[in-house]
């Protein structure tokens, strides 16, 4: 109950922050950029519209998760409202979880709206509804949930600017960590290779949530991959939230 209240308040706060204006930017980018790129290309312009649309949802969602997530806790501390909140019988873990769920709810609503706009644009070009696109968007949403947890973790111990930078770094690492596999193959067996392997396993792999290529090219997606990617996201998010709770419960606000 307490978590739900905090979550709903976070959502209201996001609405007050005019976050829905981002939707207009999304529509503009989707319409103009896909039209512009489709004009430049030779061949399949629907593919480009799909690519731009999916990338925009992912990018705008990521911006939302990072920019809003990194300020969530800091704002409460900065405005001293955290004292009022924590004076009530609320655990710090509940506070963090409520904030997390509130932002996830905001991102979910924004993703649904962006998806509706994107599907409409796509429909106007193809006159068919491609349901498979929704699968890619669903996994983009899972990735955004994880990114929200990341932003919240950094927000629990540092300033919004630094937390944004760290989160952005996390996002980049998450999308480039697959290249470490190539490095591991080239390193001779030994302590270095083992260390690299551990690092590779622990570092986030956000490519697990990237099904854009498969969906756009209509390639088969193994069910096992969908399953493991989803559970991976759940546990990684849980790990980040637990870490955030551990950090936050030691935090001194005075």
């Amino acid at each position, binding site marked *: 109950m307490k978590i739900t209240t905090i979550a709903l308040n976070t959502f209201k706060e996001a609405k007050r922050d005019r976050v829905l204006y981002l939707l207009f930017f999304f529509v503009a980018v989707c319409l103009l950029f896909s039209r512009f790129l489709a004009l430049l290309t030779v061949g399949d312009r629907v593919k480009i519209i799909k690519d731009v649309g999916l990338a925009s949802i992912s990018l705008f969602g990521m911006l939302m998760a990072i920019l809003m997530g990194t300020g969530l806790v800091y704002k409460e501390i900065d405005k001293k409202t955290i004292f009022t909140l924590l004076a009530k019988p609320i655990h710090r873990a509940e506070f963090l979880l409520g904030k997390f769920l509130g932002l996830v709810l905001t991102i979910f609503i924004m993703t649904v709206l962006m998806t509706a706009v994107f599907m409409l644009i796509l429909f106007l070009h193809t006159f068919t509804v491609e349901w498979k696109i929704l699968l890619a968007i669903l996994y983009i949403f899972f990735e955004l949930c994880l990114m929200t947890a990341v932003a919240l973790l950094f927000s629990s111990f540092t300033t919004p600017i630094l937390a944004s930078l760290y989160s952005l770094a996390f996002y980049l690492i998450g999308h480039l960590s697959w290249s470490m596999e190539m490095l591991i193959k080239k390193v001779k067996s030994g302590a270095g290779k083992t260390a690299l392997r551990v690092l590779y396993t622990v570092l986030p792999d956000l490519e697990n949530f990237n099904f854009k290529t498969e969906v756009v090219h209509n390639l088969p*997606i*193994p069910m096992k*991959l969908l399953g*493991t990617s989803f*559970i991976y996201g759940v546990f990684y998010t849980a*790990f980040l939230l637990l870490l955030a709770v551990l950090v936050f419960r030691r935090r001194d606000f005075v």
Partner: protein
Amino acid sequence: MEARSSGQNLLRRQRNLLVFALLVSLALFSWLKIQTDRVSRTRVPGSSIIYLPSGKYLKHMTFGYSGLVADIIYLWAIQYYGTYEIADRFKYLQHIFSIVAELDPKYVDPYEVGALIAIYDAHDAELAFKILDMGLEKNPDMWIFPFQAGHIAQMNLKDFDRAREYYRKAMEIPGAPPIVKRLYANASFRTMNYQEAWEMWKEVYETSQEDWVKEIAYNHLYRVKSTVDTEALGGAVKIYRDRFGRWPADLGQLVRTGLIKEVPKDLDGKDYVYDPKTGEVKPARLWWKR
């Protein structure tokens, strides 16, 4: 006191529980990561290539980091052309390398590597020439581009006319190494421009400070002269046979019948070898075995 102690115990228990949950989640997502990596995914290698606009437009979009973007595209291109699953990867070779050229025209490596990929991977000499010509157009002071193009024309196509033209371009650029002149002279000889070949080898012989280069130049001069002489003598021998119905007994007969003014000697001052049975005229020694 007791209440405080039990409160501390509770906090400690909560912390331990959190740490335990943290470790469990770490272990689980690590295990899932390994599981996920085991599932093979269908990829479309190189599908992003259609997003590379022309270099002219891209340059405006780099916000002053055109050199860095050129580096990135070049590095990416090396990886891209190492991906053998992309069957039609050479279709965009010129496009990709022209982007790098537009972004950083003075970046020499991409032209050279692009040409190497074109000739040895794509087996498309014309494409290699296009890339190297582009390099020369953007860097008129770089002899390496026409030199490499000449080498491709000579070694891969055996097109000595084209090789000669490229070597000439390379030779005219200040800083070109001496070997370019030698290659030009050789290509001139192979295209039967004997006069030019002679003059060029003579220049090499006269200007070189190194004995081994002088020796090479002298051997080539020997070859040019012996080729010209044996071709002239062979022609005269044929005319003699047409006129008298037999091969001349010796080369002196050509002088006596007025077909030539005098019997030439090779560069070493030795007589050419003549076989009266076959009418064949050849130098006393092989030019490269002297």
